[in-house]
């Protein structure tokens, strides 16, 4: 610990620990809680923690976006659907697990994480040559950097996201329709309910 204090500035350390704590507690509780609503809330917690870490990494704008899009939109959608379907009753929508037993999964995942970290340690977490895509300023300045790279280097990706949104919208509309087309009376039911 002393060595840490020597190397790392205290506020940074605190912020990091706060963020990491939020993340991990949230993540673990997603795994453990029974009620999906609680799970969603713990997801918010994790996202918040990650936002804090973004701030620690001087990616302020991304931190804001993280809160706005994830916590503000995606998780809200989750909660909306949970309420909408009334699956806050536990395990209402349970489907058979895709892959078998927990121990197997645990072993696999642990092996995966261990090997990743081990590989990282082998390479001493050395990274490649710096600043190949573009300069990155810290703090509030990096919005401009982002802007530049999004609209030059990653222009195509930016336009491609439009395609994703199209799919999302069309998909949502198609999927939200009444299920069985032969069930005409039920159709009118929906009309009446909406």
């Amino acid at each position: 610990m002393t060595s840490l204090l020597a190397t790392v500035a205290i506020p940074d350390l605190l912020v990091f620990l706060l963020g990491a704590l939020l993340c991990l507690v949230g993540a673990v509780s997603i795994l453990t809680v029974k009620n999906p609503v609680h799970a969603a809330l713990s997801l918010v917690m994790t996202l918040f923690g990650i936002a804090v870490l973004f701030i620690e990494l001087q990616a302020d704008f991304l931190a804001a976006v993280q809160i706005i899009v994830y916590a503000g939109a995606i998780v809200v959608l989750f909660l909306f659907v949970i309420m909408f379907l009334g699956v806050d009753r536990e395990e209402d929508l349970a489907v058979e697990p895709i892959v078998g037993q927990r121990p197997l999964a645990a072993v696999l995942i642990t092996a995966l994480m261990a090997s990743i970290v081990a590989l990282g340690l082998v390479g001493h977490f050395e990274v490649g040559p710096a600043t190949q895509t573009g300069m990155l300023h810290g703090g509030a300045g990096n919005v401009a950097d982002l802007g530049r790279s999004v609209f030059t280097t990653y222009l195509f990706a930016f336009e491609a996201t439009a395609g994703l949104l199209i799919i999302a919208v069309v998909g949502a509309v198609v999927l939200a329709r009444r299920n069985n087309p032969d069930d005409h009376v039920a159709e009118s039911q929906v009309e009446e309910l909406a």
Partner: protein
Amino acid sequence: MSIPLSWFIILATLLFGIGAFGVLVRRNVLVMFMCVELMLNAANLALVAFARSLNDVGGETTVFFVLVVAAAEVVVGLGIVVAIFRRRHSAVADELSEMGG
């Protein structure tokens, strides 16, 4: 000096692993989705950390696109869940109304 890269990467790996584990073992579909989101966020964290230590903007920009992808995935995935639920729901309703006459 600031936090070393390795801490962030290890943390990201942990989150990623927890998410993956959740996808594999949880039975509730919505929770599975949340775990996928968790994995994506772990990747985001790693990207930003790398971007910072590379002093390179690419990683942070990538996070942008990941956000969009996540949004699209959630929209579609929840759409599928809604569809399934409504089918089952109507099925249940039919049985009951049969009994009730």
